[in-house]
């Protein structure tokens, strides 16, 4: 047993507004520089949709993540022997077409245009070339089902749906979408780290944040191909790659990452999970449909004295263990089984989990009229507009029972709260539903509170960073205090 501490995340998709405030909070602070314009460490996708970069989920195309070959994990993009062979040309890199060419407008013309016989307008220009640009792609191009025949209809997660299901999904009977916000998953088995020829990527011991060393990076871009989530990006200005840092400067000072802080849908949770690092390799080799359980098995009970002892033995501080005990992520993922990992079949063991959304009920055509197919106050989650298979593909390695479990419990909680607050559902019926959903009144109350009434401090239980200990390894903390901030700021540059 090798107990480690990992800062993990839950995104409650049922609450997501799709507003992208998170994306901009991140961009304002981290990727507003030359060379980073197209980087969206945090982005929000409409599902069904193509995502960013386009079709990133299609590993036939991008060859990201791991495969299990003869019970051995192998990077799809660069098997161990091929790292060097592909170092100068990686055939599976996304190109500018898969991202987009950043643009702006010639706003100056509005001020400077000489008097003419027609109104001036600021024309779009490329931020790369400075020339006129015909805008044909962006980082959120298919937002809200925009261009659905081109994008949504080719969502990777539609694989395995019947033709009828697919057709109906874009007709009034089933038409639906939801939002899927994404950041780096800070995986337990990160393909990006494994792929780096320079050893520039690493996972921080104290909190599991995956970082890309801006000194050591040589710009080989293996990480970009290897990450199946396409969450490392190449900075064309500095010649180095960059990725989501989970706002470690904020986390270290007890603040939530910017995208979490700014989440106005209040969908995000952050907290520590204790896991057994000895299990990673074995668990990552399990069959697809067992992966959700396998990953949960690695997450250990922070109240268990044996786990606490093992954590202490590994140097995990008491207040970090306490933080793990209060972790909202532990509850959603492990205790309640409500939160699920994205595309766990990529086998990177992502540490960001999603609570599946409850979507409106299907309808049918009744003559010329549309008829909603709900019976009772709340619709049956099996009659939701999105086929369960879609969510299974996205969140459960095709294991739809995991999605159904979560939705059943979410719905049971709603029934229970309605029985309590309205009374037009019988309490006995509601309690029976809870039991059937593998839950209880006590658990339902807890789920309800953490979902609806949660305060900032309940959503984000940030472990203390003990920076003094980290600093002590290289400098005297007192001396550090006296001199921090003095010096010249320098951009990382190629060949540093």
């Amino acid at each position, binding site marked *: 047993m090798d107990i480690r501490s990992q800062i993990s995340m839950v995104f409650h998709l049922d*609450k997501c507004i799709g507003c992208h405030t998170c994306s901009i909070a991140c961009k304002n602070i981290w990727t507003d520089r030359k060379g980073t314009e197209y980087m969206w460490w945090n982005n929000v996708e409409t599902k069904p949709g193509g995502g960013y970069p386009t079709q990133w989920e299609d590993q036939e195309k991008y060859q990201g993540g791991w495969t299990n070959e003869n019970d051995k994990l192998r990077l799809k993009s660069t098997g161990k022997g091929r790292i060097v062979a592909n170092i100068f040309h990686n055939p599976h890199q996304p190109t500018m077409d898969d991202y987009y060419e950043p643009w702006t407008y010639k706003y100056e013309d509005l001020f400077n245009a000489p008097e003419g016989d027609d109104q001036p307008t600021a024309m779009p220009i490329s931020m790369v070339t400075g020339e006129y640009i015909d805008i044909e792609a962006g980082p959120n191009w298919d937002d809200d*089902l925009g261009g659905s025949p081109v994008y949504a209809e080719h969502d990777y997660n539609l694989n395995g749906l019947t033709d009828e299901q697919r057709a109906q999904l874009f007709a009034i009977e089933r038409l639906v979408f939801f939002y899927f916000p994404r950041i780096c998953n800070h995986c337990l088995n990160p393909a990006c780290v494994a792929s780096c020829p320079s050893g520039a990527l690493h996972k921080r011991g104290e909190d599991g944040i995956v970082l890309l060393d801006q000194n050591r990076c040589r710009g080989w871009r293996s990480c970009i191909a290897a990450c199946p989530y396409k969450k490392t990006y190449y900075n064309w200005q500095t010649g180095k790659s960059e990725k989501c840092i989970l706002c470690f*400067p904020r986390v270290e000072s007890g603040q939530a990452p910017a995208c979490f*802080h700014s989440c106005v849908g209040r969908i995000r949770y952050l907290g520590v999970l204790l896991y057994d690092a000895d299990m990673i390799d074995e668990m990552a080799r399990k069959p697809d449909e067992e992966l959700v359980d396998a990953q949960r098995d690695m997450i250990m009970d922070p109240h268990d004295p044996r786990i606490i002892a093992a954590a202490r033995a590994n140097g995990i501080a008491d207040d970090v263990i306490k933080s793990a005990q209060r972790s909202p992520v532990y509850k959603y993922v492990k205790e309640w089984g409500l939160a699920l990992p994205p595309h766990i079949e990529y086998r990177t063991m992502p540490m960001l989990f999603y609570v599946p959304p409850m979507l409106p009920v299907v309808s049918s055509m009744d003559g010329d009229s549309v008829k909603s197919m709900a019976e009772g106050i709340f619709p049956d989650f099996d009659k939701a507009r999105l086929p369960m298979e879609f969510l299974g593909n996205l969140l459960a390695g095709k294991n739809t029972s995991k999605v159904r479990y979560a939705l059943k419990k979410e719905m049971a909680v709603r029934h229970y709260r309605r029985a309590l607050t309205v009374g037009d559902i019988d309490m006995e019926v509601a309690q029976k539903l809870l039991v059937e959903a593998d839950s209880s009144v006590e658990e339902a109350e807890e789920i309800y509170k953490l979902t609806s009434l949660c305060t900032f401090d309940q959503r984000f239980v940030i472990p203390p960073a003990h920076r003094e200990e980290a600093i002590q390894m290289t400098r005297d903390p007192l001396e550090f205090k006296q001199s921090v901030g003095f010096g010249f700021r320098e951009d990382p540059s190629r060949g540093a």
Partner: protein
Amino acid sequence: MSVKTWIRDDVAPEQRTWEQFYRNRWQYDKVVRSTHGVNCTGGCTWNIHVKDGIVTWEMQGLDYPMLEHGLPPYEPRGCQRGISYSWYLYSPLRVKYPYARGALVDLWESARQQYDDPVEAWESLVTNPESRKRWQKARGKGGFRRASWDTVLEIMAAANIHTAKTHGPDRIAGFSPIPAMSMISYAGGARMLQLMGGLALSFYDWYCDLPTASPEAWGEQTDVHESADWYNAKMLAVMGSNLNMTRTPDCHFAAESRHNGTKMYVFAPDFNQVAKYADEWMPINAGQDGAWWMAANHVILKEFHHEKQTPYFIEYGKQYTDGPLLVELHKDEDHYEAGQLLRANRLEQYADQENGDWKFLMWDEEEKTTKMPMGSVGYRHAEEKGKWNLLLKDGLTGSEIKPALTLLDSHDGEALVRFDDFGEGVSTTRSVPTKRIATPDGEVLVTTVYDLLMAQYGVPRGLSGEYPEDYNDTEKAYTPAWSEKYTGLSRDNVIKFAREWATTAEHTNGKCIIIIGAGINHWYHGNLMYRAGIQALMFCGCVGVNGGGLAHYVGQEKLAPGESWGAIAFGKDWYAPSRLQNAPSWHYVNTDQWRYEKSFTDYHTVPPNQPEGSVATGHTMDVQVRSVRNGWMPFYPQFNKNPIDLANEAAAATGSEEEEDVVNYVVDQLKKKELKFSVEDPDAEENWPRVWYIWRGNALMSSSKGHEYFLKHYLGTHNNQISDDTFAKDTVDEVVWHDKAPEGKMDLVVDLNFRMDTSALYSDIVLPAATWYEKADLNSTDLHSFIHPLSQAVPPCWESKSDWEIFKQIAKKFSELAEKHFPDPVPDIVATPLAHDTPAEIAQPAIKDWINGEIEAIPGKTMPGLKVVHRDYKNLYKQYISLGPLVRESGIGAHGTRYDVDDFYDEMLVTGTTQNWGGMTYPSIEDDEDTCNAILRLASVTNGELAYRSYKNMEEKVGLPLADLVEKSRDFRVSYKDLQAQPRRFVNSPMWSGLVTDGRAYSPFTYNVEKLVPWRTLTGRQHFYLDHPGYIQLGEHVPTYKPKPLPSQYADIHFTNEEAKSMMLNYLTPHGKWHIHSTYGDNHRMTTLSRGVEPFWMNDHDAAEIGIEDNDWVEVYNDHGVVVTRSCVSARIPRGVCIQYHSPERTYSVPKSPLRGNRRAGGHNSLTRTRLKPNFLMGGYGQFTFHFNYWGPIGSNRDTHVLVRKLPELKW
């Protein structure tokens, strides 16, 4: 390789020193609290981060005080738009310096060489048609020149002086929307203009955001739940409101309430963003929500009122609604017509009642007699105080009333009453139970409002007449089966919905909320759709309870500290009255849009056989003229003479300067038609508006319904409309017809802005305005109960200044020039309409026109009020910066409240800075922050003592205890600096209808329900029935369904040739995701996350039919103008409709239009024009009495149709 090797602990700590690269970025020097003064109703608190003296980014503040236990917290608030604001500060779109149109600058400079006096210089330019035309036709076409502040101030001041002198100050207009979002900035321009005698243009109605059904039902502009109260609802019906888009920071309360067992329905023609939260999404046909509610009400009444008489619903109806009031029925051949409410003074025992025309009657079911309940408008404006309340007691005898909602159990007859089914265009007759009431003039036949409703909704109760058989009757209105043909939704769904709705309300005592907005209000018949929904709330006792009611969100109308702000903004501390103009009428008339349509009955279905003089016939313009003449609506310019000259003329003619003599002279001149209202001849040169200030808004694009008509008739520059300006020629009666419509009415258009938007681009002068991170200001909203500051994170950048400062500078220059041109105070005669919350609410019991001699012309009663104001132009600047004496002398108030502030005024003289001039000392409001503090100090919501006084004042009128509501917070005070430290929640005040004690979520009308304070309506109750004679003529006295105007009737495509491969679509312009109106839409973040333009959303099958693929350029056109943009093809848009989200700018990425001679295409409003629904022009009668932004026609535009085709050739 072990997978664990990349977990790097502390093996090489020095290798992690690079992490400082990112740590350095997360450093800053200062954090300042501010917010965004944008028209979104968000009112979010933001921390602005400053690093090296530059604003680098903004993050949401999290420190909202918590509301009561069991409610989710407000943190964080702030959306994708707000968080991108910092881009603007240093962007190439920023207006850094004053700019002026080059053509004007050249002319000005040469005129100034010729004339030493700037006013004479200006006069030389505007009186020369050639020079005036020179800069007019250059508007919008480039050629800006950077100018000095001195130059532009001189031009503006000269234009003001010249206009006041030559045409009258009521030709100087200002437009700035929604003061609540940055109230000091609004107040700056408004104050300068009012002190000058100029006019403020309304916004809420013009934006079509005023839900006219709210004043119709409640006499209230709008009062709604703070968003936390959605959480208290157990059923949410969301319609015409896309919470994700428009209520982004509030949306979580809806999402979270679902997890607390709340059921959520979403009604929208498209699968919109909020639909993802719905348990059931109802893909209702666009603009047919009224039919749904009418059918739902049919079910609710039948099952929960008639078959089962749900006790809570019945008792609620008796006490809080007009349901039990008696209505007169009039015989008309073989049937009866529903008439007005029976007036109390018609009965012998109440014949001598004060204001007996304005008191009403109920049938007491126990005593079997008529009773006269208290609380009606007649009690409100009576000498006898203390009876304006909702106790069920007779106002004369004090006896208890047991009202009969229905006469079904005690009727002495039945009468067949005629009802209209406007959808089918047929009349039906249905019986109602009646009683005969003896009066000195003989018996009158009455029924109750409730019985009329039962008949109108078609609830069979065993009475004769054309009642439907059952729910499956498709022919008879308003059955579930009937609704299918309009809504496109199954009858089973509406039945199920109605049952769930009423059952929820029954179990929770009314916890059902309708969240509603622009998607419904912007239709021509939006009031009817709203009203049908409101009735479902009233039938189930949902109004005035937490978690229940109508939550209308569009337009940030709630300016919490309204009393003191209003006094300062409209110069009421110096002069009364103000000139407040309803913008819809003003623009409809002055942009000549009235010339482009014929009778409104071409598209507005009204009952047949209208009586003589009906308001339900003819041209809207004729009703508009009548409305002004009768004092129902304001109109400025007032007369075809300068009001200063007119006052002087009156004094000369009568030899008296007494107000009464001057006014009598004016009335006499009007009666003799020697003097005319400007509205009667708006195209005559003497009646044009001349100078227009625009600030904080995009008056020439975002809100200019009929944008191209603005360009033509206001600006006189090129435009793309092809309609016919003589269309109305043979239809109008009341207005002077000119065969040639004037183009370019405006001499000068000034825009204050931080960015170069469309309005700036088309203005003559653009002034650099400070951004929301560069000035002190205040912000409040109806979505939460906190008040926020805007603060200076950095000083105003480059040469920008705050709006308050800019108008102060203009005022200063104006006063300098006035030394010569207006050395002495001048009299100005000010005409004002009959005003809500004053005795003018009981001015006109019937529609009678003095112009025809039907009634005496009495100012303030049968015609506009007339007052003489003596303006001191020389001292205008000093007045601007000084809080004037009138607030000290007369106290302040709003919504019919009043309280004294003299002691606080005097305290300010001691503790604050002062202005000393003319031998007097005044509290200074020279600086923005002074003004913030003055407002906070003198408003009831931020000064508990004043709330207490205001309640005490109300107690006298109401006769019931009220001051206890603020007893606990009587010592509450808040200053600007307090707000910078933390958001503060305001306290209870009688200005508002919700109660917030102990962290309770604000829900409207809880004050009325719990404290029995009447609604500010005719009867003091919530109105099902609208008995205004005009409403009866229009057939809207009862709730009803009216069909949408057909494209052919609406004449959007009358002169347009349909090009090959085009398709006609209903054009919707809802609020979008990447902008707040036009703000942020041109911001780099938002253009990147969208598609670089505001695209044209259309259905995939529709697109395929005319060969359009996703992201193709398309040309969208009709008579009014043209738009060229990209397509966004999507299955989520239903066939037959299209969406261009409100509101794109024409300043970026807009190509040229082949269909309009390759001229630059326009913006969304290039395809619209406005129509005014005549109902809302009524006045002087209960809740149908004018109040700025409160009552009046609204700028509807949603029934528009367009043609779309693939753009044949892209040209820039």
